[in-house]
C-alpha cells in the first residue's frame, strides 16, 4: 500500500504569502497565496498556481503541481519566466533553494515536508482513546468517558539514505505541525469503513519524541525503523 506523509504549511497574510513573477520580461507582478493552512504539498502547489494565475492567466497557462517524488514543479507551459521569493519559508517548503530565472519550467530539488514510502510501513493500527474520569472505591466504581481521540500508530521502515528526510519530516511533526497521511494511491477520503484514503493527523501530544531503531545493529548500512503515534485531527 503506497503511503506518504505531507506536512502542512501555513500561509500567513502579510508574512509569507507573496512572491514575484516576471513572465516573458513583461515586468514583475506580485502573486499572493490565499492565507490558510495547507495540509499537503499538493494543496499548496495548487494555491501557488492560483496565485500566479490571478496575475498571469491572460498571458500564460501556468501549471504548478506536486510530482510523485515529492518535489514541486512550476511550469509556464510557454515562455520563460523569473520568480523571486519574498519568504524563504515558502520557498523552502516548495523545495527550492533560490530565486528562479531564465527557464519556463522549474522543479524543486528538495521535499522538505514530504515522507514517501520507500519500504513497507506496517502496524498502522487504529484505535480510539477515551479519556476517563471516575472514582474507584471499594465495591463502587464509576467511570465516565469525557472525550475521544482517534489514535493511529505506524512503524515506518526506511533506508539509511533517507534518514535526513525522515528527520526533517519528524522535526515538523514534533513541533506540532499537522500533516496529511495518504494511505493509498487512490487518495480518497478516509472513513471508518474504509481505512484507506487520506487522513489529517498530528503527532500524539502525549508523545513528544520518537525513537529510531536500526534493524541490524551490526550492519548500519541498510535500514532503520521508527514508530509514530498520531491522532486524527
Amino acid at each position: 500500500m503506497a503511503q506518504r506523509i505531507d506536512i502542512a504549511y501555513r500561509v500567513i497574510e502579510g508574512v509569507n504569502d507573496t512572491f514575484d513573477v516576471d513572465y516573458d520580461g513583461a515586468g514583475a507582478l506580485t502573486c499572493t497565496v490565499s492565507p490558510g493552512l495547507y495540509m499537503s504539498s499538493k494543496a499548496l502547489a495548487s494555491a501557488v498556481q492560483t496565485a500566479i494565475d490571478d496575475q498571469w492567466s491572460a498571458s500564460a497557462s501556468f501549471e504548478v503541481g506536486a510530482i510523485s517524488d515529492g518535489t514541486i514543479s512550476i511550469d509556464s507551459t510557454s515562455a520563460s519566466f523569473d520568480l523571486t521569493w519574498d519568504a524563504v519559508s515558502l520557498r523552502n517548503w516548495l523545495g527550492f533553494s533560490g530565486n528562479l530565472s531564465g527557464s519556463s519550467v522549474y522543479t524543486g530539488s528538495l521535499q522538505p515536508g514530504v515522507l514517501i514510502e520507500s519500504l513497507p510501513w506496517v502496524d498502522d493500527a487504529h484505535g480510539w482513546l477515551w479519556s476517563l474520569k471516575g472514582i474507584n472505591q471499594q465495591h463502587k466504581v464509576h467511570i465516565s468517558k469525557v472525550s475521544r481521540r482517534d489514535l493511529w500508530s505506524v512503524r515506518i521502515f526506511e533506508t539509511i539514505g533517507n534518514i535526513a528526510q525522515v528527520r526533517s519530516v519528524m522535526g515538523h511533526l514534533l513541533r506540532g505541525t499537522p500533516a496529511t497521511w495518504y494511505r493509498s494511491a487512490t487518495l480518497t477520503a478516509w472513513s471508518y469503513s474504509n481505512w484507506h484514503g487520506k487522513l489529517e493527523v498530528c503527532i500524539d501530544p502525549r508523545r513528544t519524541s520518537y525513537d529510531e531503531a536500526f534493524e541490524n545493529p551490526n550492519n548500519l548500512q541498510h535500514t532503520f525503523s521508527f514508530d509514530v503515534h498520531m491522532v486524527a485531527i
Partner: protein
Amino acid sequence: MGYKEHVNNPDMSLRFYVKIQGLPYIWLSGEVPIAQDGTPWLSGSYTLVPSSFDASDVQDIGCNLSRISGGASPASMLIRLVEDRAYTNGGIFAWDKQTGALANLADDFPYETGSGPWTMTVDSTADFVASSGTLYLGRETMTYTSKTATTFNVTARTLYDPVGYGDTVYRHNSNLPSAPRVVADHPRNFIGRYVQVYAHWVTADGYAVDDAFDGDASFECFRGFIRELPRAGSDWSSIEFEIEAIDSLLRTTVGAELKQGNLSLEPLAKWAAGSSDTEIQQGKFFLVGGSSRKFHIIVRDTAGAVVLNASGPNAIDILTGTGTPDVPPVTEVLTEEQLFGAFFLNVNQVIQATVSNLEIRLDRIFSGGGYEYSGLHTSINYSIEINHDGQDSVCSMLGFKGTSTSVTNGSFLIFASVAAQDASASYVSATATSIPFTYVNDADLMTAMAPIEPGFAVIGDDEEAEIVSYQSISSIATDVASGLYQMNGVQRGLMGTTAKVHRTSFQDDQGSEGGADVRFGVGVLNDSFLLTILNLAQSTGDGNHGGYDLFGVGVGTPQAPGHFDSASFLEASSDMTPTEQTVSYFLSKPEQLSKLCRDWLNPVGRFMFPRVDSQGQYTIGVGRQKPAIASQSVLSLDTTQMHWSDPATYQRGTSNIVTGVTVYPVWDFANEESKDSVKVSVLNTDAEAEYGHRNVIEWNLRGYTIGPGQALDLTKNWASQLAQRHGRGKVVLRLTADRRAWWANIGDTIELTVPEIPTPDGGRGLVTRYGVVENIVKIYSGDEPGAILTVVVESSALTDAFMPYAPSAKVVSKSGSDIVLAANEYTESGSDVDYFSAGDRVVIHNEGDYSTREARTIDAISGNTVTLSSAVSLTVGSWTAMDFDDYASAITSQRGGAAFISDSAHQLSTGDDGMRYT
C-alpha cells in the same frame, strides 16, 4: 496581524527572549530569530546572547485575588540564564566586581529633563575611559562623550529602557535617603530592575513571523522586578534570579514622614531670649500677621457726623499705615514694645491725616500686665468707636472683644482695657489665608522631610482639628527672631472640618503643652481615586513622569508610567459615577499603596492586576468583579480546548462565602481613620442560616465626603450586590485548557461545555454555561503549553443570568419584512444587532406605546438588516424600538444569557449590572 491571532494555529509555536532594564543585552531562548524572508533579526544597539534563556518553564502563575480582603499576591518567575563558554553572563551579573571604575557623586544629578547634556559631578573620573563611555547609575544606563577631572558630560540617558522613565535623580546632601550615590562603568545594582520576558510566534519551520524584535506578533508574557541578587545555579553554569510580577510595586509605601509644626512660639522665644528658661518669662512676642494687623476705628464729631471711617475695608494696617499694604500680608514677629511702637506710628499716621492732633495709643497696663487703648485730643471732643471684632483686628489677638466707644474731653482717656490672660501671642482667624508656625524641635523627626509645597496640613487635634491646604511655605524670620515660617495661600476648613480660630496664649508658649499641633502631609481634594492611585505610584516630585506626576519629592514611589495601563484606569473611571470615585484624603505618614488601592477599589468591585494588555505589553490594569455576562464571554471552552485526560476538577466552593458586609462610610480625615461609630451592615441572613456565620467583609470608605444618607444608599447598594453574588456556595472548577485560553484574564466571563461532568443539580454535563475566571495560570512553554483556570460557574438558575443591558435596537426604516436597525444606539462597540440572533422572538413598538407592540420572529440577520417572520404594520416613527419579547415568549437561547423585561409596563430596573429576570 496582532499577537493573539496565531494561537489558533496549532502548527505555530513560540520562542522567547528576555530584556533587563538598563542592560545592553537580549537573552534568546534559541538562535537569533530569522524572518520569513531569511533575514536574521537585527540586534540594534543590543548584544544578542543566543541560546541563553532557559525557556523550559515559562509560565505566569497569575495573581491570586482575595474576595474577602481585595488583596492580591503577586506572581513570580525564576529566570535562568544559561552560561556560554565565554562566561558572558557571569561577567554581566557580577555585582561585586573587584575591577572596573567607580566614583561617588558629589553634586545633584537631575532627572532626564530637556535634551541634555547633563553634567554629572563626582569625586574623581580618573578610572574611567577618557574620551567617551558608558555609565551605570542605579538602574539607569547612560553615555558620556567627554569628562573633566570631576565631571562627566552625559549626552544620552535611559538607555536600554523600553518601558521608559527609568531616569535616576540624585539629590546631594539632602535629608532624603537618596540612592544611588555611586556611578560605575559596569552594572552593580540589579535588584529592582524590571525584566521583560517576550514571546514571539514562529511558523512550524522555525521562521519568525515578525521581522524584528518587539513586532506585532510578539507579546510580553511576563514582566517583573528582580528581588534577589543574581546567583549561580546549582549546575554552576547558569545565573538564576527571581522576579516578582510588576504589581509587587504596589506594596511599596507612599506618602512621607514630614517635619511637623506647632502654632506655639516656644522655639522662637527660646532663640530670642536665650536658652535659659527663666529668661523665657521675660520675652513676649507677637505674631502680627494677616489675621491680626488691622485696627478698626470710626471717629465722629459731636453732631454724630463721621469724620473718619477707618473701619471694615478701610481699617488701618498697623504695620504699614498710609503705606502700600503688603500683598499677601506679611507676618512680622514683634516684641511688645515694637508692637506698641508700630501701632502708635502707623495708626496715628492715618488718623492724623484726617483728624489732626487726635492720638491713639496701645499700651501695657502697668498693674497686672494687661493691655489698654487710650487716646487724647486736647481741643475737640470726638466720639471714638473701636470695633475690636473687625476683620483681622489686632484687638482679637490682644483679647479685646466687642465695640468700645468713648468721647475725648481734652484729657487722656482709657478707651478699653483687657486682662493679661486674655491676650494671645498669635491669632489666626477662621478666614486667614496665611498661617504662621514653627517647626517642632523633635530629635525623632530630625531626618524628616520638609513639608511638600503645595500641600496639606492638619491644625489641632481631635474635635478641634482643621484641615487646610497651602500653596507655599516661606520663612518669615526677622531681626527679632528666626525659626518662624508661614503657610501661604491657605484654604481653610477642608475635608469636612470647620475653619477655626487658632490662638496661642503666652501660657501655651511657655508651657509644655504648646499651641496647636500642625501635621503636614499629602492630600488630595475631590479627585478620582483611580487617578490618585496613578499619581501616588508615579510621582517624582519633579513633574517629569507625564500626566500623573502630581505629588512632591518623596511622596510617590515613583514608578515608570509604562508599568500601568492608564487607559484601563481611565476606562474604569468613566464607568463609575463621580460619587463612586471622588475622594479627598489626607496622609501624614507613609502608607502601603496596595492598602489604599484595596480600600478604594474593593467596595466598587474593582481590582488591580497585571496582564498582557491589548498592545501586547504586560502592565497593571483595572479589572472588575462582576457576574458572568454571556455577551461578554471572551472564551468558549469545550472538549476541543480542554485537556483530554483531566479536563475539570471540582474545588472548594464555600471557602469564600460572604455572609455579610460592614461598611464604615464616614472617614475622619484629620485622624486618618474611619469613624467606628458610623457603620452600615448588610447581612445575608439566608446565607447565614444556611452556611453559618462566614466571612464578613469590612470596607472602610477612605476619603469619601458624602452625606450619611447618600453613604447609606451607596453602601447598601454595593454591599447588597456583593452579598447577593457571594452569599451562596459556588461551583468552582479547575480547568486545564490548551493555549487558546491564554488571552483570558481574571474577572473575564468564559463559556463552558464539559460533557459528562457530574453537576450539583444531580445531572451530568455542563452545556453552554458561563463562569468567571478567578485565577489563571498561563503556561507558555514546556510539554503542554496551555492554561489552568479556576472558574466560578454561575448557577444554572436563570435568575442569575446577566447581560450588560436589555437588548434593544432602534429601527431606522422598514421595507417589507425587513427592518434596518441603527448601528450603535445602545452599544459602544460592535453593533446593537450583535445581541440578536435568528430565531429570537422580538417585539417592535414605538416609544411610549408598548401596548401596540407587534411580536415577530427573526428569520435572518444581514449587517444591520433584520428579516422578520412577517412585515410589521406600524409606521416607523422618530423612535421605534425592537426589544426581546417577554420571558414567556422568548426562546431558550434568549433566556440563557439575556435580560428580559417581565412586566407589561416594560419598566427597566436600575441595577448597574444590567437587567435580570424578575
